[in-house]
């Protein structure tokens, strides 16, 4: 089966006279294969090039180099109007002077779909996204969530072979956003249209994507399932960007099978990967290497977040289920011992953020987890 979309060595540069090289590289030689029916999410800080990729795929920008294939067909030279891609824009870009119906049927009209067919299709779409009764309204008479639905229906109207969503939930408040996320995911499952969603919100990316692309500085840091991106970050950037993480700096004290003594490492530990237990008596001789005091206690509903100041002054964030915190009698000012259940180490000063190799991670972890607290 051919892939829904394939990008090969795709780059996009924009002229920028303020830079010494004279241009800004928005997308830097990326490769991507999106499977049919796949929901792919792309996440990264603003300006990392994720929206540019959508614009290049849709044909609104032409690539500086590289190739774009849609369902196996090279489309580099094809104008946007002939690509049949549904594009939902950030801020929706609804036609202000048209009604909901006119917005949705715009693409069908241009593609010369006969009026009777058009009416049926628009009615189907309106019920699909739940906009019944609002057909004659203009965009300014709709709430943010309703506008989002119109934009989605409009993008889906001519049964596109690919759906691109650029920050689709950015303009609605948090409650509505959650519902729209669920609805969008359900709709995509139902329609089986291959979809790329761009967001700066890592939670959204993890929740919606079959796979997640983490982007930084125009490059793909990692392409993997949400669980993999979270649990096995390939680069320090991914570890820092996805989820919360503690970062400890450490130096290897002895030669390691792979790394020499003196190697400087950044060790990333997720708050939920730190196991805490209360120290009953501070005067007792202590075996665990990590000891600290609870200096902040936040109740977050089902979980509790603790800030723990280690004996050397380092801060460590810990998350644990509310029940555990109660059972272990953890409270502000309490003395605790810590144990690191899982971590990821990356070479320090490795600007490229290149992965250290996942096979190394396990070995490094056992070696460094007890040195984290050393100053």
């Amino acid at each position, binding site marked *: 089966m051919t892939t829904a979309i394939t990008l090969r060595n795709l780059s996009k540069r924009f002229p920028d006279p303020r830079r010494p090289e004279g241009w800004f590289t928005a997308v830097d030689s990326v490769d991507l294969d999106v499977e049919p029916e796949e929901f792919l999410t792309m996440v990264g800080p603003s300006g990392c090039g994720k929206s540019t990729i959508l614009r290049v795929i849709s044909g*609104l920008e032409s690539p500086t180099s590289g190739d774009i294939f849609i369902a196996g067909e090279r489309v580099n030279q094809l104008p946007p*109007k*002939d690509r049949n891609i*549904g594009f939902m*824009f950030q*801020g929706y870009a609804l036609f202000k*002077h048209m009604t909901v119906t006119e917005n949705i049927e*715009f*693409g069908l009209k241009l*593609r010369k779909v006969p009026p009777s067919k058009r009416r049926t299709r628009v009615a189907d779409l309106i019920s699909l996204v739940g906009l019944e009764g609002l057909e004659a309204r203009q965009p300014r008479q709709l709430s943010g969530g309703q506008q989002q639905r119109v934009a989605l229906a409009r993008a889906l109207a001519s049964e596109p072979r690919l759906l691109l969503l650029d920050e689709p939930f950015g303009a609605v408040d948090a409650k509505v956003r959650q519902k729209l996320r669920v609805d969008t995911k359900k709709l995509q499952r139902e329609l089986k249209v291959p979809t790329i969603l761009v967001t700066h919100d890592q939670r959204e990316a993890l929740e919606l994507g079959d796979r997640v692309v983490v982007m930084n500085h125009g490059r793909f840091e990692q392409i993997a399932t949400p669980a993999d991106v979270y649990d096995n970050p390939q680069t320090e950037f991914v570890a820092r960007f996805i989820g919360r993480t503690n970062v400890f700096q450490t130096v290897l004290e002895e030669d390691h099978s792979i790394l020499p003594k003196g190697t400087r490492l950044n060790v990333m530990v997720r708050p939920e990967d730190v196991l805490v237990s209360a120290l009953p008596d501070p005067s007792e001789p202590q075996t665990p290497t990590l000891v600290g005091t609870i200096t902040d206690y936040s109740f977050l509903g089902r979980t509790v977040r603790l800030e723990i100041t280690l004996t050397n002054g380092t801060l460590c964030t810990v998350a644990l289920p509310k029940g555990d915190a109660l059972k272990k009698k953890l409270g502000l000012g309490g003395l605790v011992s810590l144990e690191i259940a899982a971590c990821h180490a990356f070479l320090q000063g490795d600007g490229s953020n290149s992965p250290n190799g996942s096979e190394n991670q396990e070995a490094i972890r056992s070696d460094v987890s007890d040195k984290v607290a050393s100053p």
Partner: protein
Amino acid sequence: MARYALMTSGIGFLILLIALPLTAIFTQAYQGGLAAFWEAVSSPEAVFSLRYTLTLATATTAINGVMGTLVAYVLARYEFRAKSFIDSLVDLPIAIPASVTGFTLLLLYGPVGTIGGPLSDAGIRIMFSFPGILVAHLFMTFPYVVRAVGPVLQDSERGEEEAAQTLGASGFGVFRYVTFPAIQSALIVGSIFTFARSLGEFGATIMVSGNLALRTQTAPLFIFSEFNAGNIEAASAMSVVLVLISFVLFFGLKFATGKLTLGRALQ
């Protein structure tokens, strides 16, 4: 108290400056009664000048409506070297004295001008005829449509045009279905200003037209000539006609565009 003081001085100034002179013209025009007024404006010279003026204004509005929109679009959508230079060029017709405009056009297109000379040898005459006057009017009224449409294009989101593209619209389709509806009101405002300015254009017209009755005489030139000849009735009658046309234009504009204030569209 301050409110009334401000209102009185503002409105009072407006009445003294604009309404009062206009009343004077109306009184003068009706002095001989309606029959005399009708006689004055229905003379062949008067009818010709009025028709000539309206034809000129219509042609000017049509051409500058299209070209002004095009220039506004280019300035709003594209980045290029010398853009700010081109942009300030647009406003020049407002700053340059009309007589200077007429003079430069004469130098260029006149019978001995750089372009007019060779054309004249070939039997084509631009100056002292409709095309020459049209060029002068196009020049004098050029800023209005550009300055009315430009800000609307600058404000309007690129997004809508791009959305139309992804939905299957060609370049012309994007303009027809998205860009044009957005600029429509501003274009009407700019066109009415263009029409009104062309209607009243005098300084450049008198230089390039030769002021030939029944051949190149516009209504403002008719007024000037009749006044010089001591025919005050004819001059004031035609003045009243022009004032009424302008008034109807701008009143109609207020009516049609409703919320759109002229000031905002023209800034």
